[in-house]
């Protein structure tokens, strides 16, 4: 840690431990019935971490199977189950709740100077709903799993699959409501609970990003809910919504599914972009470049994101004209995403950059997200997509965004706010080391998949021709490095909760209301409602010495 970031002398000494949200009360009840947004955030943190490792377990199975060309480790059916559970768990139970439900929950009220979210009971309820959904998912998982792919396409899911489709659909349906309630809570909180002086254009960009995300959660998720209801009615009660023999059409399922699931990819990436805006400004010691553009590009992404779902269906038999429109609109979605990347880069320009762990994650995010976004444009190309659709190229594209982007942002955020959440500092050396391990492991895992896909290796098969082996072995080797990269932070973050150095109020010298509260904050965050008198990120650039 460099001199600029050394804790100021005011760090509390252990002898005078003040009351804060963690030691305000003890016992199971005080956690399971808490209405404190910060404690609920930690409940979420524990539960999504659990699901992350369950999802990771299935990823290990997939990568192990693909080390050899022959389908030898698992039967085709078991392989289908493995990648489906990997996708379902990672998307619905880890990535969608990750940043909003943990960091957003913890930080939004503090960042806007409020005592809590607008609806604390609803917040706790959303965690319980999430857990019930998770339990149903676990039931589906232990009673044979599901083999349809996370996309649950009809008619395979509605008619032919013998696996636990109904239970999985119910699980996703239920957790969907936890996502809706979180989003609803955030929108109301951001509208109605801002501290005096905190105008819309003084909000931290993290809050803007969550505002846009929340709008998608509230408006998109119910469409998935009704789609799943129709699927369950078809599968369990013999209704024929997607069955041509009874006047239905399976393509309708795809339309409804992607109407939610494309916007859902922005539920996963927008909050991460919000985190990156905070990190880049703090560790460049500079006011963010183009605040308004970054804020508005989040909103633009939320709006445009609802208009491009058809790019998943170029080869589904949808009309060519629809395909053309969806293609053009998908290219347009690239614009607000690129605006952000350019603005972050411009923020760093001539900044005084320090290479603390969160900033390393931010660098990782920017590079990997850019690759993921640009390959998205390849796929949005009508002609090219015919070649690339359902190949490993698509798998690489979305992992670059979801793992290289969203998860890197999540980890960067966890590190950045860890001192605030726990009152402890993590070991900087280990943290930097594991960030690098993750970066290397990630690229080794997923870059070969671009090549594989381009060469024509389809996704979702347990066997492949000999000539693809080298790249697949590289990918599996990378995955094991990646796995180590996730385990190291698990260990030292746990360790630091007890043994880490005590964190001062503002270990990074960062701007923002959350850094004016004690680490960790008290139950109601502020003794007195703060008054905001300046724009966000009023960093004063220090001279280099």
């Amino acid at each position, binding site marked *: 840690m460099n001199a600029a970031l050394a804790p100021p002398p005011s760090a509390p000494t252990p002898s005078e431990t003040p009351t804060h949200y963690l030691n305000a009360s003890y016992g199971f009840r005080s956690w399971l019935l808490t*209405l404190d947004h910060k404690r609920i955030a930690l409940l979420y943190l524990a539960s999504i971490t659990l699901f992350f490792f369950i999802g990771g377990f299935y990823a290990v199975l997939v990568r192990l199977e693909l080390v050899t060309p022959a389908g030898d480790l698992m039967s085709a059916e078991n392989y289908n189950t493995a990648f489906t559970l990997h996708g379902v768990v990672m998307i619905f139970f880890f990535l969608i709740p990750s940043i909003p439900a943990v960091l957003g929950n913890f930080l939004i009220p503090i960042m806007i100077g*409020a*005592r*809590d*979210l*607008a*609806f*604390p*009971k*609803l917040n706790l309820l959303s965690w319980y709903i999430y857990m019930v959904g998770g339990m149903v998912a676990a039931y589906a998982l232990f009673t044979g799993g599901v083999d349809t792919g996370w996309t649950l396409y009809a008619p395979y899911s509605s008619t032919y699959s013998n696996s636990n489709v109904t239970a999985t659909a119910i699980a996703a349906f239920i957790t969907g409501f936890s996502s*809706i309630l979180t989003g*609803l*809570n955030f*929108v*109301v*909180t951001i*509208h*109605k*609970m801002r501290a005096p002086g905190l105008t819309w254009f003084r909000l931290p960009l993290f809050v803007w990003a969550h505002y846009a995300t929340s709008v998608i959660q*509230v*408006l*998109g*998720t*119910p*469409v998935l*809910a*009704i*789609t799943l*209801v*129709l699927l369950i*009615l078809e599968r369990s*009660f*013999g*209704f*024929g*919504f997607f069955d041509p*023999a*009874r*006047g*239905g*059409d399976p393509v*309708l399922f795809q339309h*409804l599914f992607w*109407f939610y699931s494309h916007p859902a990819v922005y539920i996963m990436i927008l909050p991460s972009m919000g985190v990156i805006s905070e990190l880049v400004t703090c560790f460049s010691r500079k006011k963010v470049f183009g605040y308004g553009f970054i804020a508005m590009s989040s909103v633009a992404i939320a709006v445009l994101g609802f208009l491009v779902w058809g790019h998943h269906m170029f080869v589904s038999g949808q009309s060519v004209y629809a395909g053309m429109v969806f293609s053009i609109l998908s290219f347009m979605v690239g614009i607000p995403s690129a605006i952000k990347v350019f603005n972050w880069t411009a923020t760093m320009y001539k900044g005084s950059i320090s290479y603390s762990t969160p900033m390393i994650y931010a660098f990782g995010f920017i590079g990997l997200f850019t690759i993921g976004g640009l390959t998205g444009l390849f796929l949005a190309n009508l002609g090219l997509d015919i070649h690339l659709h359902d190949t490993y190229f698509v798998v690489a594209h979305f992992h670059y965004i979801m793992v290289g982007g969203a998860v890197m942002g999540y980890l960067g955020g966890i590190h950045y706010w860890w001192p605030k959440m726990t009152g402890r500092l993590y070991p900087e050396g280990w943290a930097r080391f594991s960030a690098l391990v993750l970066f290397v492991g990630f690229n080794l895992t997923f870059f070969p998949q671009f090549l594989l896909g381009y060469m024509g290796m389809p996704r979702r098969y347990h066997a492949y021709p000999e000539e693809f082996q080298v790249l697949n072995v590289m990918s599996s080797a990378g995955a094991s490095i990646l796995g180590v990269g996730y385990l190291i932070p698990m260990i030292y973050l746990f360790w630091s909760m007890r043994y880490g150095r005590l964190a001062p109020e503002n270990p990074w010298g960062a701007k923002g209301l959350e850094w004016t509260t004690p680490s960790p904050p008290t139950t*109601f965050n502020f003794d007195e*409602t703060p008054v905001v008198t300046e724009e966000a990120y009023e960093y004063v650039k220090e001279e280099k010495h």
Partner: protein
Amino acid sequence: MSDHSSHGSGLAHQFDDLDQQLDATTLGMWLFLAQEIMFFGGLFAAYTIYRNWHPEAFAEASHHLDIKLGGFNTVVLIFSSLTMALGVRAAQMGKNKAVFNYLFATFMLGNVFLVVKAFEYHHKWVEGLIPGPWFRFEGSTDPAVQMFFNLYFAMTGMHALHMIIGGGLLIYFMVQARKNRYHEGYYGPVEIMGLYWHFVDIVWIFLFPLLYLLGLHNS
């Protein structure tokens, strides 16, 4: 949706005053309703597509619904919206007894609706119009007639589910009114309950013509 625990006035700790609390809960309910619109929107989208593809089959299938019962239920729901609105008004004036009575009337009208609906469902059951392997339809052999009933049951079923939830909420608010909870400064929960109830009614106002009144000008 609201927290009224800490103060006798009904103000929850995270808000500064009752105005802010009312603003927030109202906005919350509107967002919830936006969510509901998207939820039903999926069904309406499916309806629009399939009806456009199979107008004749839909019209023919629609004739098997009972317009009289459907019309009666429409009137019942419109009345329940009136009693609900009067209940909100009573809460704003702090007349807890009137709140109770109006909400009770709303609750009973909702039940009448559900009982009539149950009779209609039973009728369809007897006629073999429940989708699935047991589906029997005399007349058109177009498989799309079954799609009409798929949609009929899914749409009215989801609507009925919302009515049942609304009924449960009404009971809660009736109990609160009995405890004299509401006064001029604190009536928000009844008001947002009203928003929900009116929304559910409006959904029916769309469902009735779309399901019951198809192709009448041809017959």
